[in-house]
């Protein structure tokens, strides 16, 4: 019997998801033995036409990491969707847009203007801009189009499963891959794999009190106790709105959660959930005082939607003169 076929691909991502797969250590050899790895750009021959030549739905499992930022990313999403039986949005970028998704707070034009003209180290008096098709003396060369808006994989093609995390933690990846290799029955399409069904707070382990917050602190301002809940100490921690699964690594290192495992179970919008959680712990009835307390959180969108702006109800910043 032929082996099941596995593909891994990276779109707009940092490569951390790929390192996370390698961090399952010797188990990577089991994966390599169980599957026929038909496509892994960094490991096997990476050519569109090789994938195009495969019969449709011939890849049993495709782990797709990275968001959709360029025309090349989008073309690969469509191609791999067509060729794969099960397509997994692997990691925060593919699932929610992740930190690069904060690009949706800006525009392509502003980005190009800064990067290629206004940034202080750039010398470009002629205003040269990278262009998708360029004539050089010897012929034509191309680069992909840089899109205005970052999209998640599921906003471009239908997706069966989601694996959260930036990056997904190696033990979670190992568990998912073992289950698949042992022939475990997969949950209904649309499910989240490789994570918990609670919130990050449930993994943190620090004792929590009834919260009555009179002010917030930024973490450079105070040296918080390692024994107490960070939110109790006035440091915004995304734990209450974030899905469990990472093991609360950041909080255990005395840094607040920033929400990389995405929205908690049964929560549609991580940012709104966090705003609601904070609203219930602010200890004031005085509107002026409430405003003052909220002003201690200097960047609400970049804090509450650090990892999920493209998949959230906000999706992107709107500009009055521009439609997206």
């Amino acid at each position, binding site marked *: 019997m032929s082996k099941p076929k596995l593909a891994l691909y990276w779109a707009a991502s*940092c490569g951390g998801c790929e390192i996370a797969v390698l961090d399952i250590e010797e188990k990577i050899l089991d994966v390599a033995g169980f599957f026929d790895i038909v496509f892994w750009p960094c490991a096997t*021959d990476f*050519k569109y036409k090789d994938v195009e030549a495969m019969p449709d739905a011939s890849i049993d499992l495709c782990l797709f990491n990275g968001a959709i930022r*360029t025309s090349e990313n989008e073309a690969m999403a469509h191609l791999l969707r067509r060729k794969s039986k099960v397509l997994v949005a692997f990691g925060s970028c593919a699932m929610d847009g992740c930190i690069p998704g904060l690009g949706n707070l800006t525009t392509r034009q502003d980005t190009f203007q800064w990067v290629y003209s206004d940034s202080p180290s750039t010398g470009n008096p002629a205003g040269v801009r990278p262009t998708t098709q360029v004539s050089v003396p010897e012929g034509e060369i191309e680069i992909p189009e840089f899109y205005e808006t970052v999209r998640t994989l599921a906003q471009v093609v239908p997706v069966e499963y989601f694996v959260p995390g930036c990056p997904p933690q190696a033990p979670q990846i190992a568990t998912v891959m073992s289950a698949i290799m042992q022939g475990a029955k997969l949950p209904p399409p649309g499910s989240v794999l490789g994570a918990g069904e609670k919130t990050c707070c449930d993994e943190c382990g620090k004792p929590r009190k009834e919260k009555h917050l009179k002010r917030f602190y930024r973490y*450079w301002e105070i040296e918080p106790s390692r024994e107490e809940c960070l939110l109790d100490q006035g440091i915004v921690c995304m734990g209450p709105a974030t899905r469990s699964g990472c093991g609360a690594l950041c909080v*255990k290192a005395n840094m607040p959660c920033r929400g990389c495992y995405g929205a908690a179970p049964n929560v549609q919008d991580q940012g709104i959930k966090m705003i609601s959680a904070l609203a219930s712990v602010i200890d004031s009835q005085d509107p002026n005082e409430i405003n003052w307390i909220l002003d201690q959180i200097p*960047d609400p969108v970049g804090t509450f939607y650090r990892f999920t702006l493209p998949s959230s109800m906000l999706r992107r910043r709107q500009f009055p003169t521009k439609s997206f």
Partner: protein
Amino acid sequence: MQKITIDPITRLEGHGKIVIFLNEEGEVANCYFQVPELRGFETFCVGRPVEEMPRITTRICGVCPEAHHIASAKACDAVYRVEPPSAARKLRELLYSAFFAGDHTLHFYALGGPDFVVGPDAPPAERNILGVIKKVGLEAGGKVIELRKRAQRVVSLVGGKAIHPVTAVPGGVAKPLSAEERDEIIEHTKYFVEFGKFTFAVFNDVVLKNRAYVDMILSDTYTQRVYSMGTVDQNNKVNFYDGLVRVVDPDGEELVKFHPRDYLQVLEEHVEPWTYLKFPFLKRVGWKGFVDGKESGVYFATPLSRLNVADGMATPLAQEEYERMYATLGGKPVHHTLATHWARIIELMYAAERAAELAHDEEIISTHVRTIPTATPSEGVGCVEAPRGTLYHHYVTDERGLLTKVNLIVGTTNNHAPITMSIRKAAFGLIQRGKEISDGVLNRIEMAFRAYDPCFGCATHSLPGKMPLEVQVLDSHGNLLASRKRG
């Protein structure tokens, strides 16, 4: 005109593509190294609180998040004009040294190594990490995996997370190291140093004892004379974490030694329409196009350039090998691109020895690891040597510490021009009229960019597989004349 496209080249940080044009005679007319990607961190970070940057900019690269984490934290220190306690600086450097040891190891064994250990003309299916293990023994392969595991462990003990560490904050680090954690780390660093010695032996046996390899390293095809850049300490020894940036000319004479905050006086970036990545160059010398020599402002920033600008290594075993390298290759500076592999394992040994020194420093378990900033934030530059080159983070904030401007010059970016030139030179030297473009020729062209350390993440991906490269020869009408693919 014929056009050869290598798309994508692999084992590069992110995505990359090479286009080689042949003229009617079948000789190389020109060559373009394109980076088809832009992610826009500099603009979308505007408005973010500056202290979040060490946790945001890690996502520029999941292969070397430590470099961004630390450069960013240093920029935050500068923005808040705060000096971290000595123990915090040492913890950051410990994390950074462990990371360097892991990163350089994987490049040497999984990426650069196969070309030498297995051979540049070996069948592609063997020219990978598995081929290396076959050649040098299963035990060696186990050592590489073990080294990597231990390096990741040290990063997670100090940084909280192995991929995308979180603990560096303005004015220090978020948590001290416990005595138990320190004891564990000491054991790991012993392993690093032993591994460094083992790697020197492998390099000596496999590369230096093979005259053909030494000739290849010294050959003109892989040689270009450009300026060198790297960070040095107060004794002009190589340093990854802190110091002044020194630039020497192709003859080894110092052009400038500057504090990273003055980088704008030294560097400028050139823009081309056919790639999203810019081309930094030395302002004082000027952009003269993709040419080498003293009159051209092109510089490189790699393990080799770092050794070229320094007077030596700060640790004994690395220093010994440093002296041996320059003695063997005919003195300083060295401009043979393939010698970068040798320089890389010298840096690996320095990182291992430095990690061990720091782990043994009693201060490393001090609980005083933070200085709370008091100054009004404004502007700052943070700089480290990333494995792939000097990394600059430059932030400007408002009085609340919210970013108003962000400028980044990233390790690999420094080398965009020299990589382009190295590939071109290799292509000119290796593709000859009427001769078949063999697999070995393709691989030898790839070796020109691989020396710059495309990316260890991709390198480790070669574990199950092969090295892809496709060359298409197209005539002036875009018709496919010949296609050759290996892997």
